[in-house]
């Protein structure tokens, strides 16, 4: 690992050096480090690029880090990672991708992450995307996440993309069995001419399943964001999705929520709000002594916290 790669790792995974527990670090398409534990195995796929992360039933309080860094201009890759989490687990999975592109060609990471979460297991999945580099080449990330939650499984997914990714298409698809619960928190900020599309498609198939999707975003400059969400209530279930966007400068934001209730006891709610920073919020913080720029910064950083 070189300095640039180490710095990307710090940005996306708060990692300084080697993490504790199981990990797999991928740098420019090569394995740059791996550790497995008694309960967590990581196996390289043989038929396509990617890894299988296999977590034994009953694994508690363990974590897996699987960061990806790209620092080679013009490098593009497509990676398939599968997570097989056994029953009765309580684990944290930290993924993330950092791209440093100082060349003129596009650098791109496309990933498909598929989760199988066993009965009664609780998983926290954290994913951060970050780009940097002064080249003209675009930094592109297209993550697809597929979630299968077995009975009473609980997944918390936190994804953040605050800086430096020129183009992103996120697609998150999930199905929930009886009693399963899915909480998604997504934070996105786009600048310049960046484009971000995020799409959710969730099937609440089991009785008493529930999903809560909260997407908060800030679109600045000339950037563009599209938010699509489809929630299908196919059983006695509760679904809530919320898209809350701050729009600034010449940016555009589109929110297209769709709810589909296929059971009389499905209770589905969507909230969407797009607007600029409220003038009274700016004024309040200025009466506390902040300048206009400081007030704006505080409001945005709080909003995306």
């Amino acid at each position, binding site marked *: 690992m070189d300095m640039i790669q180490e710095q990307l790792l710090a940005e996306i995974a708060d990692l300084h050096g080697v993490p504790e527990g199981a990990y797999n670090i991928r740098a420019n398409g090569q394995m740059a480090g791996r550790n497995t534990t008694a309960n967590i195995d990581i196996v390289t796929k043989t038929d396509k690029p990617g890894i299988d992360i296999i977590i034994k039933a009953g694994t508690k309080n363990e974590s897996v880090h699987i960061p990806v860094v790209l620092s080679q201009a013009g490098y593009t890759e497509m990676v398939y990672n599968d997570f097989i989490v056994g029953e009765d687990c309580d684990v944290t999975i930290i993924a993330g991708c950092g791209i440093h592109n100082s060349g003129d060609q596009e650098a791109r990471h496309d990933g498909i992450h598929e989760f199988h979460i066993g009965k009664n297991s609780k998983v926290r999945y954290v994913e951060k995307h970050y780009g940097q580099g002064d080249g003209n080449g675009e930094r592109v990330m297209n993550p697809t996440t597929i979630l299968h939650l077995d009975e009473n499984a609980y997944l918390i997914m936190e994804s953040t993309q605050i800086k430096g990714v020129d183009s992103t298409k996120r697609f998150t698809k999930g199905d929930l069995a009886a009693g399963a619960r899915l909480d998604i928190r997504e934070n996105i900020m786009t600048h310049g001419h960046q484009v971000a599309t995020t799409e959710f498609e969730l099937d609440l198939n089991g009785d008493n399943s529930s999903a809560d999707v909260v997407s908060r975003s800030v679109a600045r400059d000339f950037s563009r964001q599209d938010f699509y969400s489809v929630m299908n209530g196919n059983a006695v279930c509760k679904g809530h999705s919320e898209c*809350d966007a701050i729009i600034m400068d010449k940016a555009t934001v589109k929110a297209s929520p769709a709810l589909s209730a296929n059971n009389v006891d499905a209770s589905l709610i969507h909230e969407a709000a797009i607007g600029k920073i409220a003038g*009274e919020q700016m004024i309040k913080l200025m009466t506390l002594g902040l300048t206009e720029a400081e007030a704006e910064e505080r409001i945005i950083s709080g909003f995306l916290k």
Partner: protein
Amino acid sequence: MLELRNVSYVVNDGETVEILKNISFRTDDRFVAITGPNGGGKSTLAKLIAGILTPTEGQILLDGVDITNMSITERAQNGISYAFQQPVRFKGLTVRDLISIAAGRKMSLSETCHVLSEVGICAKDYVDREVNASLSGGEMKRIEIAMMLARKTKLSIFDEPEAGIDLWSFTNLIQVFEKMNQEIQGTIMVITHQERLLNVADSIIVLADGKIDRMGPRADILPGLLLYDNTCSLLNEKVR
């Protein structure tokens, strides 16, 4: 010392409306109450002093310095605080964030708790709460007052601080003002309809129809205000 010299505020929205007409006064009293009927221009006056609105005519001076053309931020940094009548909610900012911004430095947990306990809020339950729609109007009002306590400026303007604090008591609110007076030795200016707050004011300014109807020491103004005057019939209703 706050001084207003011939301050007027006119809005032109199709037709010209004079919200405030030729207001002049000077005060360094520790507790000044501004009262009068709704629509009389009280909140506009507060916003002109805080810099949220700019007078169309006249000058505003703080300790002899002309602040008429200063921005909101500059006035805040020069010692003016303003507690809104309708406190503002923020998605994502916590009570501690706001108290820290008000204090101008990162406040520790115990410092934040101390300020919140002054306004009767059980601090532990609130420090990390977001100042969003989940807080009630009364809670928002008290957090607004707590920010003023954290700021400790020489001029503190409160716009109807009593509205919505029913769960708390006037006695506590008055104690907060007294404590601020002891600590800061500045001027507290309160827009109010409440007799109990008027009762503790050093001086009272009555604003009606955009003009100073009368002003002076409490002893001179208050009796007439409550008993005899038509301009303040609204005030009387509110007090009852």
